[in-house]
């Protein structure tokens, strides 16, 4: 028997594979392809206090080995989300992680408070979306702002708090440490890398928002490096994501120090990716006589393994 379960802030996931926020909705649409009961966790798309319309289109562009998106956090707001999306997810035996966004600290806190008595198991705080003018990344690029929002949310949150970090910073280890020092229970990274694409035929920006967040296979080495740096800097669990499309990709993150991983853009390329990654990790463990996945977390650098 192999043990694929992992523990993030006292919440046990049956395996380390989650969905990355924004790529999987609340699982309603993908449940036609994926048995949600098999996932370690479903991480829902960012939800704010009121409905947000998002950005004008075009909102996405394909790039070499990846894609740019500038959806702008379109979402129905917390009321509809609790009544509809969380109710839908209550039928499944999986961990529910709700991604929270806002324009001000007060808005984040209010959403967090509204989630207190729901079936949300954990909260992921989006301080890293590069596609909205107010909030989100503004909190994730300034250590003081990040410290403040982490503290305020931690005071009010009933569930464990995961801070989702932006790669668009000069010192990811510092940002992870700031989260830990201010009460975060875990950090997740990376959100998308800010990018741009130009249509040379039309001589225009491809995205209506001009810039967008780069995700997909192209960003994986950057993400693995940042997960390694963050995991080195903090004792709280690090959840790794950024270009995971295969079990081998997921294992890279785990060996770099991630206690869990998330599949994002690859859901679009193949809706079965999460299941294939879970199966592939299991196969790797069997083939290599690894009985407990926790033996692999940070195994390329943690002293206990060397």
């Amino acid at each position, binding site marked *: 028997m192999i043990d694929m379960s992992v523990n993030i802030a006292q919440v046990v996931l049956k395996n380390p594979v989650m969905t990355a926020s*924004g*790529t*999987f*909705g609340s699982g*309603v*649409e*993908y449940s*036609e392809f994926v048995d949600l009961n098999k996932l370690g966790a479903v991480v829902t*798309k960012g939800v704010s206090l009121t*409905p*947000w*319309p*998002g950005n004008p*289109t*075009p*909102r*996405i*562009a*394909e790039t*070499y*080995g*990846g*894609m740019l*998106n500038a*959806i702008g956090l*379109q*979402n*129905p*707001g917390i009321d*509809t989300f609790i009544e509809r999306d969380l109710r839908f997810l209550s039928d499944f035996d999986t961990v529910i992680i709700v991604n929270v966004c806002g324009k001000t600290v007060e808005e984040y806190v209010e959403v967090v408070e509204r989630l207190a008595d729901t079936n949300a198991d954990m909260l992921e705080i989006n301080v890293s979306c590069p596609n909205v003018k107010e909030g989100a990344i503004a909190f994730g690029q300034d250590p003081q702002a990040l410290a403040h929002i982490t503290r305020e949310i931690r005071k009010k949150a009933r569930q464990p708090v995961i801070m989702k970090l932006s790669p668009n910073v000069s010192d990811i280890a510092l940002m992870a440490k700031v989260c830990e020092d201010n009460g975060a229970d875990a950090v997740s990274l990376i959100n998308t890398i800010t990018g741009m694409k130009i249509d040379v035929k039309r001589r225009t920006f491809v995205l209506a928002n001009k810039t967008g967040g780069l995700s*997909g*296979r192209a960003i994986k080495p950057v993400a693995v490096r940042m997960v390694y740096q963050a995991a080195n800097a903090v004792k709280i669990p690090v959840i790794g994501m950024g270009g995971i499309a295969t079990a081998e990709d997921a294992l890279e993150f785990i060996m770099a120090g991630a206690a869990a991983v998330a599949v994002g*853009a*690859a*859901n*679009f*390329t*193949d*809706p079965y990716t999460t299941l294939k990654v879970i199966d592939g990790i299991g196969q790797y463990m069997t083939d290599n006589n690894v009985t407990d996945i926790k033996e692999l977390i940070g195994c390329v650098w943690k002293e206990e393994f060397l």
Partner: protein
Amino acid sequence: MWLSTNAAAGAIAGQFLSVFPNSDSMQLMRPLSICETDSSSAPGKIRLVYRVVGKGTEEFSHLSEHDSVVIIGPNGNGFFAPVKEKIGPDTRALLIGGGIGIPPMVELAKQLKCSVVTVAGYRSRNDMFLTKELEREGELVIATDDGSFGHLGTVTDAIEQNDIDADIIFACGPKPMLKAVAALSQKRGIPAYISMEERMACGIGACLSCVTPSSDIDDHSKVKNKRVCVDGPVFPASEVRL
């Protein structure tokens, strides 16, 4: 290209297939509208007619017999779901296609059990395609931008000049054409259903890439943004803001 697939059974005109390039450098599917279906054998067949505009469609154009390609579909609502009016044998349907919006009109003309006039707009005589198929399914009027074949001008010019009347309009094509169709629909008081195109990532309603501004609140986000992939691609012309 014709695909042999059991997705053909029950596919509705106006629906699309998500077609995935094989190359790892391309992560996103290409949404291609269904041009024709053939369910006379099992599995059935779906015909996709597309323009080579980038790397993905370029890759598809090199597929040959017995090659395989990954698809998801049929996706979207198709031309009939949003229709509020009753379509009977006496209904006069006007189908309007512009350029690469023409292919879905072939299957629509086949599935409509009423009188069909199709107006197809092309850049020029040399760009014409699917004319035989459209003629087979009803009356065909052609407009070209340069006047090298049929009417000189747009599809709506051709409709005005020919004084074509109808009880219902179905249209697919570039946005300026859809705007002109929506204006014509309003002016003449003929209900129009238009098929929209938008860049997509998931194609199943989860990612919110392909929204189009709508006149009423959408079911998903409670804003005024309908998802082209699942709420559409076909919308009543009066319900989207072009």
